[in-house]
């Protein structure tokens, strides 16, 4: 069976075959999405949520810290981006920086309260803080626009000094989001195999042993929470740009639950790529099942239950098992052990 703590096939590689495949699928999406009956905007949404899910899994899967209120930081990022455009200046970079900074600061504050906790107490506190952010977003009309949210958020152009790209249509926005996603993906891939990343995985396995080999458990838990919140904020900022609005719904408990479900169904507990599969499956289910029946969430929920019961390692675990089975007969034929 695979696990997150496996030794990578090519230690030290910055670009792996999986990253190339991931990039190829994303970069060609505008060509094949219409062919399979989907539309360009779903690509933008999927890419943003993959970004969110990969950052979330750093905390959930790698460090084993179960946050059920992560929507709060996604939402803080969305509002920060919108408010920056409306109150400060229309600027893509300024807005995204504001989104990252606001979510990171929120994560640092909340993380300071969480990091002494473990297990169910940790999870409950993430929910409590998530609800506080959600409630504040609804009630602080003057800042957030209450339940209506912030409307008319612009999509500022990506200005690189000499060249500037207009992001107002969905395809160009998609390419921009994919560029951000690929940079973050490569960064996260490096991070999880770095000393810091391995420390995160040590905490998941035994906080006690980690402390007794000299790891400052509290500080590491705090740092990874803030980092994960910052990535959620970046995704939230991009989302408010995609939606051209920011609203409290993304901060609600059930939206925070979706990111957990996506990560689990995809196999975030056993694979770096699990969250990617989980996000793709969720959006395909929403759009394909959703076009067939209004009760699609019922079917999605059933799918979740079946996965949890039969394949708790999720899609990534199932794919791994399948590839092992396909490889095994060939390996045996060649007179080698199956592993």
């Amino acid at each position, binding site marked *: 069976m695979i696990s997150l703590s496996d030794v990578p096939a090519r*230690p030290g590689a910055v670009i792996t075959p999986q990253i190339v495949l991931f990039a190829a699928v994303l970069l060609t999406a505008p060509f094949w999405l219409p062919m399979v009956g989907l539309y360009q905007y779903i690509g933008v949404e999927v890419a943003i949520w993959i970004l969110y899910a990969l950052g979330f899994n750093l905390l959930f899967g790698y460090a084993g810290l179960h946050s059920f209120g992560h929507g709060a930081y996604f939402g803080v990022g969305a509002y920060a981006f919108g408010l920056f455009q409306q109150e400060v200046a229309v600027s893509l970079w300024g807005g995204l920086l504001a989104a990252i900074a606001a979510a990171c600061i929120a994560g640092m504050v909340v993380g300071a309260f969480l990091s002494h906790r473990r297990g169910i107490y940790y999870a409950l506190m993430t929910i409590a803080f998530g609800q506080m952010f959600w409630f504040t977003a609804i009630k602080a009309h003057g800042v957030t626009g209450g339940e209506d949210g912030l409307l008319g958020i612009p999509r500022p152009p990506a200005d690189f000094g000499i060249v500037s790209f207009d992001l107002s249509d969905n395809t160009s926005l998609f390419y921009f989001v994919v560029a951000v996603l690929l940079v973050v993906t490569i960064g996260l891939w490096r991070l999880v195999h770095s000393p810091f990343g391995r420390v995160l995985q040590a905490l998941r*396995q035994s906080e006690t*042993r980690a402390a007794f080999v000299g790891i400052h458990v509290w500080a590491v838990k705090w740092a990874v929470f803030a980092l994960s919140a910052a990535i959620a904020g970046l995704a939230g900022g991009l989302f408010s740009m995609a939606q051209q609005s920011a609203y409290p719904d993304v901060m609600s408990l059930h939206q925070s639950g979706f990111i957990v479900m996506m990560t689990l169904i995809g196999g975030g507990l056993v694979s770096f790529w699990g969250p990617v599969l989980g996000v793709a499956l969720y959006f395909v289910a929403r759009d394909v099942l959703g076009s067939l029946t209004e009760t699609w969430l019922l079917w999605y929920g059933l799918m979740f239950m079946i996965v949890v019961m039969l394949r708790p390692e999720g899609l990534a675990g199932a794919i791994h098992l399948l590839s092992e089975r396909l490889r095994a007969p060939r390996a045996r034929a060649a007179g080698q052990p199956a592993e």
Partner: protein
Amino acid sequence: MALFEAVHLHKRFGSRVVLEDVSLAFEAGKVSGIMGPNGAGKTTTFNILTGRFAPDRGAIRFEGRDIAGRPPHAIARMGIARSFQLMTLFDESVVVENVMLALPAFRAAQTRVATDVFADKALMDEAREVLALVGLGHRAFQKAKDLSYGERRALEIGVALAADPKILFLDEPTSGLGAEATRSLAALVRRLRERFTIVMIEHDMRFLFELADEISVIHWGQVIAHGTPSELMANKWVRRSALAEVA
């Protein structure tokens, strides 16, 4: 002055007094043993000495500094390492990574976010050296959970050794081991005593009397006897508690 010293330690959990006026001293370069019946307070003593719990009263001095009440990671960073009686390993991780996480060189690098630990030759070599020392060199890329019981015990010690400690606390290293594995563990401890100051809790009297330079006997949360193995053999309290049967 002793390298490590605990003076008048008191600890109670709720209304239960677990340690009452415990004083211990461990000399540099020696193997010190702690023995006593189940529930006597041996592991609690270890937990207090290595920072898991703070004592209610009393001082713990390491190289002359008072370390009582400091958190475990701070104590570990001073060069105080321990193993656990209930094995506490990073089960999903491979053996070499278990050891690597405890290396001081790794600790210095732990905030680095852009280098791959398995591609870092210096770290890998250092971790492999520790594995060779505890006889697990051939198991480096097995997951810790896939090792045999005896190998896991050896890895427990390996993780503690990786810190290159100034003092090494071993909590019942022979616990659950068969005769054969106990013999090879004794050989390992004999090799380690050349380089490390060792304190161990042990139930296996033959093992302890053979290896320890001096032994403290803890009973009812108090130190009831202290001395070299031969002195203890002559002690009537030790004799009375049926510990002398090994002799």
